[in-house]
């Protein structure tokens, strides 16, 4: 039980970003304490004081965590219980109470505190200027436009950095493996993935043989991907290039 409690503490710290020196949760906890002391409206105490406190208690309760994980069959989503705290609503309400009549200076101070204790969401490395209306990398769109069949579906082998995007643009493109291979903790195995991504240098004959078992009508490789022998020696043609990607077409497949 103590171990489960400590795990919950780690989840809480990770959620609140304490390890990255973010202290927005500090504002929230102070506001919660403040509301404990000053909120007199009974019904508001229920929503803004008692309920968040009980949820925090449940979050750290080992028995509750055991039941939650057993029911959901998933321990990775336990942090979502903290969504019930609704940090922003409770904090905003409490902070406005705290400001009282000093609204202007209070609001300025609160905004400064949020900036200092929080983290700017648009600084994320995962956010970049959109290259098109799909919000997908233009290279993925251009490659699919080049190889997409007029009818039916084809299987295409693409490098890891395109796996997320290709099928968001066209579901007529099928993949030998998908995103599941890129999440290490899911621990999947796929021989094609090993040959494509894990091998330092692509073993061309084995690679071509594996690709044809699906069969992959096209193989997309980065131009600097090292291969023991060129794919063109194994029945593939250099079909085209998009940016740093080279598109190989399997000429042994009649219908592609």
């Amino acid at each position, binding site marked *: 039980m103590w171990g489960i409690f400590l795990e919950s503490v780690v989840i809480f710290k990770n959620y609140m970003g304490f390890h990255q020196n973010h202290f927005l949760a500090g504002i929230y906890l102070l506001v919660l304490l403040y509301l404990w002391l000053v909120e007199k409206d009974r019904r508001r105490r229920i929503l803004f004081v008692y309920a968040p406190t009980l949820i925090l208690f449940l979050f750290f309760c080992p028995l509750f965590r055991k039941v939650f994980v057993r029911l959901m069959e998933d321990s990775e989503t336990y942090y979502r219980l903290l969504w019930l705290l609704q940090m*922003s609503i409770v904090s905003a309400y409490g902070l406005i109470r705290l400001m009282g009549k000093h609204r202007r200076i209070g609001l300025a101070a609160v905004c400064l505190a949020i900036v200092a204790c929080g983290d700017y969401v648009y600084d994320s490395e995962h956010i970049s200027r959109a290259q098109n209306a799909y919000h997908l990398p233009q290279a993925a769109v251009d490659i699919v436009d080049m190889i997409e069949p007029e009818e039916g579906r084809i299987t295409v082998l693409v490098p890891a950095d395109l796996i997320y995007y290709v099928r968001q643009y066209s579901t007529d493109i099928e993949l030998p493996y998908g995103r599941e291979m890129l999440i290490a903790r899911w621990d999947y195995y796929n021989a094609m993935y090993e040959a494509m991504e894990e091998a330092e240098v692509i073993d061309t004959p084995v690679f071509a043989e594996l690709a044809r078992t699906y069969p992959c009508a096209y193989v997309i490789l980065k131009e600097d991907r090292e291969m023991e022998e060129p794919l063109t020696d194994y029945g593939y043609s250099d079909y085209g290039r998009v940016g740093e990607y080279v598109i190989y077409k399997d000429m042994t497949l009649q219908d592609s």
Partner: protein
Amino acid sequence: MLPVISFIFWLLIIPFCIGLIPANFIPAEKRSPGFVLLSGYFGMWALFEIAAVPAVLWVEYNNFKAASAVFTVLTLFCAAAGILLLCRNGIIVGWKPFPVKSLLTEAGIMWLIFFLLLGFQLYRAAAFASFDGDDAYYVVESLIAQEAGVMYRILPLTGGSTGLDVRHAMAVFPMWVAYISVRAGVHATIVSHVVMPLALIPLTYLLYYEIGRLLFSKTRQAGGHVFQKQNLPSFMIIMAMFQIFGNVSIYTNETFFLTRTWQGKAVAGALVIPALFWVFMQIYDKGVKNGRTDAGIWILFVSVNMAAGVCSSIAVFLVCILTAVTTFCLAVAERDWKILFKVGAACIPNVVYMAVYVFMAYSYLLK
């Protein structure tokens, strides 16, 4: 032009008309446009759950087309009923021309700051792409439904056929996105990444506005402080700042809200759970005349519960926990044990959802 009209119809007019139904069952002075639109959205998602979940579970071929047909009939019927009720009974308050002069007041300037913050978030949502690995599942599910007319029968990650993954299949939010995409004739990925944020971010702030309105619109004495209307724009600014600077980790609902707005779980965290706060505030704010909560609020409560199931299976469990905790506190504080039964009855859709979930997930044990 046609897609724009279609988006306005399905994302504004239809939910507004549906929202007229619960609005009809609350006092006229409470019928604000915000209440109508928000309750319309939750009602629309509840209808989508009724149409889509049975189709996902028990229709094998063209299940998306079947669900779409049922949903279209249900929504148009409810929208028509809402208009009919409005014509017969109702008025909507809160339609006031924007007071331009008030822009020069302190509150006006604060509103201006809030709208700048909102506009900035909308600009970032439309002009910037936010990468999230889960899109390879959810967005592709929407696209498969749009292109192939099937729900959860094709593995989105690779394209192979698959058995039913009940946990994801019962959360049909991507199918609702697909439905909007089909009606507008726009690629589901564009709808997910551009249209949904432009619709859902303002909708979420509309909810925060309604919560703030309940908290601050009346001048009331509480704990020695006088709450005034001027506090509402301050509240909205703080809410916006919390969203923009709430990225203290990848797990917060604020991060989900602005980086993966189009996913059901983000909608659950940013819209559905706060909506429960909103509903509880209204349940607690019992009618002065007879001490009873208005029927429209109970309709809204049931809709929000059902909308949680549309967003995510875990959200159903989460709203049940929040409901149980707050209702327990209310029952103790008010010495009103009947409230447990009333709220329990409103949670029946969640119980049914979880029962179906458990049955489908473990039915293999019966074979």
